[in-house]
């Protein structure tokens, strides 16, 4: 196997005024072309880990290494956080207005994305005219427009109603296959992890991952994951 796209080593992070650390020597590896689903209960520190990878959260100690020193990341948050003063097309294209993305961005790519995302007829609409699902697709488009090496998603569909969530999960999985994306997706939803992940890491708490499943050869038994949820082996494993 080639060098991993991303390697997290001994990541530690304690929030000010917190009783204990949110991340306590967490290790993680992400291979090029794979989708890692980080599954775990609320408050276990998944978002902290994702924010640290995204460079939004400083680490107290430990390191985050990328295969490519000029690695480009893009993040999709739980809420779409589209700019309300821009049209959908302008929102998707926003990364092109930043010097850092000049080499990767093209207007034509934005138009392609709008059509892949099924947003062509809403391209000139404004975010307040979109449904929750459309807004979240636009947020995915905004992230993909800068052709990121790694896409980071933090509970991207958890604000949507369950039926729509299922539809968007299979839509995103198709998109991932089609564009051969490398991604980390954080979720507390077992079905979402199964639907999206090539590999599922169980993130139990500050100590990090306690178990992992690979889904390339048929999806892991849902039962197995649920059993692990119940038992919560506290032994940290390398994911």
């Amino acid at each position: 196997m080639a060098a991993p796209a991303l390697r997290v080593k001994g990541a530690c992070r304690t929030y000010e005024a917190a009783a204990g650390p949110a991340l306590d020597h967490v290790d993680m590896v992400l291979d090029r072309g794979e989708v890692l689903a980080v599954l775990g209960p609320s408050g276990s520190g998944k978002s902290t880990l994702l924010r640290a990878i995204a460079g939004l959260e400083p680490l107290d100690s430990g390191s985050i290494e990328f295969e490519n020193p000029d690695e480009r990341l893009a993040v999709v948050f739980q809420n779409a956080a589209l700019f309300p003063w821009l049209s959908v097309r302008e929102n998707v294209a926003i990364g092109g207005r930043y010097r850092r993305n000049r080499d990767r961005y093209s207007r034509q790519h934005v138009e392609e994305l709008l059509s892949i995302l099924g947003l062509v007829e809403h391209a000139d609409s404004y975010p307040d005219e979109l449904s929750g699902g459309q807004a979240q697709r636009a947020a995915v488009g905004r992230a993909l427009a800068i052709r990121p090496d790694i896409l980071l998603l933090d509970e991207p569909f958890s604000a949507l109603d369950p039926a729509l969530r299922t539809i968007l999960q299979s839509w995103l999985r198709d998109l991932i296959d089609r564009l051969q994306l490398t991604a980390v997706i954080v979720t507390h939803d077992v079905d979402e992890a199964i639907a999206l992940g090539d590999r599922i890491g169980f993130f139990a708490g500050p100590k990090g991952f306690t178990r992992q499943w690979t889904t390339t050869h048929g999806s892991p038994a849902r039962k197995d994951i649920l059993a692990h949820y119940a038992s919560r082996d506290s032994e940290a494993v390398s994911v």
Partner: protein
Amino acid sequence: MTHHTTWTTQAPARSTGARARTTAAGSGIRKNLGLGTLGAATAIGLWWIFTHTAGQDNPLIQAFVPERVPAALFALLERDVLLADAWASLRRLMAGMAVAAVLGIGVGILIGSSQTLDRLSSPVVQFLRMISPLSWAPVAVALFGVGDAPVFFLVAAAAVWPIVINTALGVRSIDPYHWRVGQTLGASRFEAVRTVLIPAIRAHVMTGVRVALGIAWVVLVPAEMLGVGSGLGYEILNARDRLAYDEMLVVILTIGVLGIILDLLTRILLLDRRRR
């Protein structure tokens, strides 16, 4: 001109509700216009009755009867003073507003960006904005001499606070996720200011400017009574000195009309340009 007592007005919401309102606005505007005309006509009627009954032997009130307005207006226009004075006043208003906008937006962004700075400056801002800018008039004249400069100063001193307060509010109301979006997409500090900060605070700043303009216009007229030789405030004193009370009334009415026009213009400026 309406007197604004609340300085921090919510910026217009870009919600679906706001859009629904604009479609119903057509008939609403027509109805408002009708009632507004009726109200204005009633006010003129009451004014006529008052000046014809109460003020029979008072020369000032005698000069204020509505039917003398047209002749006085023509007299002022004939001497070329009214438009020149209105222009002089507007010019000073714009100069004072420009100073207030530059200072107010700059200071507002700083205060809005830093909680420490906000806490540090809050008592001073609250204190200063409660002092009528006209209290500074003697100071302004002493510092800047007689002429345009003290008027600019007083207008700016009146207008700066609502701009500071609304700009700071705008910065504080920025969705933290919008900053994160900029940051994770690789925006430099300057690019984040350009693509997140400025568009995000625009509506709040415009609200501040509109409130400021109303206050500035109210302060401008008495400020022009401080030894300048032109402007609507000056013309009121000039008409009084000539005992031309009817012309004085015309100047006062002009102040009101210009105030309404200014407010309308800023309202148009405030309109969400994104939609027709």
